[in-house]
């Protein structure tokens, strides 16, 4: 199962304000009544994109200037709360390819990496500068360079971002989905199961 290496992702960006954006916010629980992940894209951020009457709110994802954005910019602890993979799945299906935030919740981070969606951390200052540029020119192209651990913008910003080495390695070597490697170690798995009396 050779997977495509994820060395960099690029696209227009949109900023979703606020700290501690939880996965209930990203995909409200009622949209998890499903047995496949198909179709989750249209419900991403649903309850903040639409009001009680189904009317569009002033949420950035409703702003035509940011239509088609594929890089999400966020604040601290993005993706906290529920472990639901429905959250990164809905972002992927909505069209996002990468996230730059001040920090991430762990389960969300892991889920996203396994979906080949790099999540990188930038300083508050660098993110603020990037947001400013995106706000002034929503068409500006933002690139997350996973190999070099940098983010760049068409407007000339170029700053360091971080992600754990294991995630970087998994993305750039095309091993972001670990299933084959896990399966390959079947002998060691069987030995461990016996050693620990699980079977």
């Amino acid at each position, binding site marked *: 199962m050779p997977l495509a290496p994820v060395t960099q992702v690029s696209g227009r960006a949109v900023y979703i304000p*606020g*700290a*501690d954006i*939880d996965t*209930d*916010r990203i995909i*409200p*629980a*009622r949209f*998890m*009544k*499903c*047995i*496949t*992940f198909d179709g989750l894209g249209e419900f991403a951020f649903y*309850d*903040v994109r639409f*009001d*009680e009457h189904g009317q569009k709110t002033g949420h950035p994802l409703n702003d035509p200037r940011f239509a088609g954005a594929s890089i999400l910019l966020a604040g*601290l*602890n993005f993706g*906290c*709360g*529920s*472990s*639901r*993979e*429905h959250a*990164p*799945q809905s972002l992927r299906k909505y069209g996002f390819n990468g996230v730059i935030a001040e*920090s991430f*919740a*762990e*389960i969300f981070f*892991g*889920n996203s990496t*396994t*979906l080949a969606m790099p999540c990188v951390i930038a300083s508050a200052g660098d993110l603020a500068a990037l947001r400013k540029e995106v706000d002034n020119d929503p068409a500006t192209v933002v690139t997350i360079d996973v190999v070099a651990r940098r983010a760049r913008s068409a407007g000339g910003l170029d700053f360091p971002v971080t992600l*754990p*080495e*294991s*995630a970087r*390695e*998994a993305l750039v*070597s095309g*091993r972001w989905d*670990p*299933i084959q*490697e*896990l*399966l390959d*170690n*079947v002998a*060691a*798995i069987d030995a*461990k*199961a016996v050693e*620990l009396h*699980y*079977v």
Partner: protein
Amino acid sequence: MGKSLFQKVWDNHRVGTLADGRTQLFIGTHLIHEVTSPQAFGMLRDLGLKVKFPQRTFATVDHIVPTVNQDAPQDPLAAAMMTALRDNADEFGVTYFDLSSGKQGIVHVVGPEQGITQPGTTIACGDSHTATHGAFGAIAFGIGTTQVRDVLATQTLALEALKVRRIEVNGQLPPGVYAKDVILHIIRLLGARGGIGYAYEYAGDVFARMSMEERMTVCNMSIEGGARCGYVNPDAKTVAYLRGRPYVDMTDFEATAAGWLAFASDADAHYDDIVRIDAAAIEPTVTWGISPDQGIAISEMIPDPAAAATQGERDSIVEALAYMKIPAGAPIKGVGIDVAFIGSCTNGRLSDFREVAKYLRGHKVAPGVTALAVPGSQIVAVQCEQEGLPQIFRDAGFEWRDAGCSMCLAMNPDKLVGDQLCASSSNRNFKGRQGSSTGRTVLMSPLMVAAAAVRGSIADAREVFALEPDASIV
């Protein structure tokens, strides 16, 4: 230097090191439910894989089950999810505690109840509150659906080791202060992001005195503090709780128990961080905002953005208060409620209902308040029946329901309507969490929920129920 329980269990379960540097960790027990498993079984089928050790996987249905007329025809999507779980369990040979088993319930209630949750083991479940099982000295991870697939197919996960923070709470908890208050207090102090990268070890005499059910309440909310797992070291109480449970091998129980206890952290274990908290300083605690770390003691005022130290803090207070529609600087006590909910994997066990029933007799739910009591499992429901608890709740004006997650996340018909405010014993006060995009949640202990139900507003249970100084359960 000795090892912490986390390190012992981790080292024990390490299968190898992966090319990206992560550990391949053996998962002793896999718990699954209807929301996060169907896609994983789908992936398994696509890859032509089987479940590696079907006897190590246990399924139940909890999130979407209705809590009245559970067997009656229901919403077609929910029915499809239940059918999918049934079919997957049958096809792959997985044990399924279904609605007719008498053992169905919230996955984090069922595991311990059945004795599936054991010290020194690793547990994974596609649910972030899997840390609940850490109450038994297990290392229990909440995982995503692709990882559910990984565990199904290989009984292992690719994981990065965690640091360990020991949180010591010593001293005497005041009357009316419960396990829920302790964990809300810890999360308030350390923040919703404070635990990122850590496993939390809860230690000190407060946790030593707690019952297993109280320890579960604490470990349950580790993720609300950002910690992926949390645990209490196993002791005599752990052993006593597990003795004779269905999935505990009783052939040489003393040896088994000795093995469990050996997993407890060594006295000279290494910790990456240690936090000490004075139990006497903890009050009944409630949340006021939209993140579980936005908590205050019942006697305190709702925060004022004007007093915030940083712009970021100011912004989050403003956002939370706008959503909660409560005034800055005013007492939290007295804020009107519409709904009261006692249940969930945090506080839906026998001791929770018992403790509330002790005080609820003779009181009535305030007019206009809808009050729900939802046992965490069918077994909890039976235990409550045996003690006559449902009648006490009904007499007071509570609706006594069947087992499930219910209004904790409202994937079943139990939902808030509009901007109703719910006093809730669950674990999350996120925007929209209880089924209405404008619904409001205030987290608190079960007895505080009962007090709010009786007053019709957020209240101090110690006043409402005239708690005696010896009434504390810890």
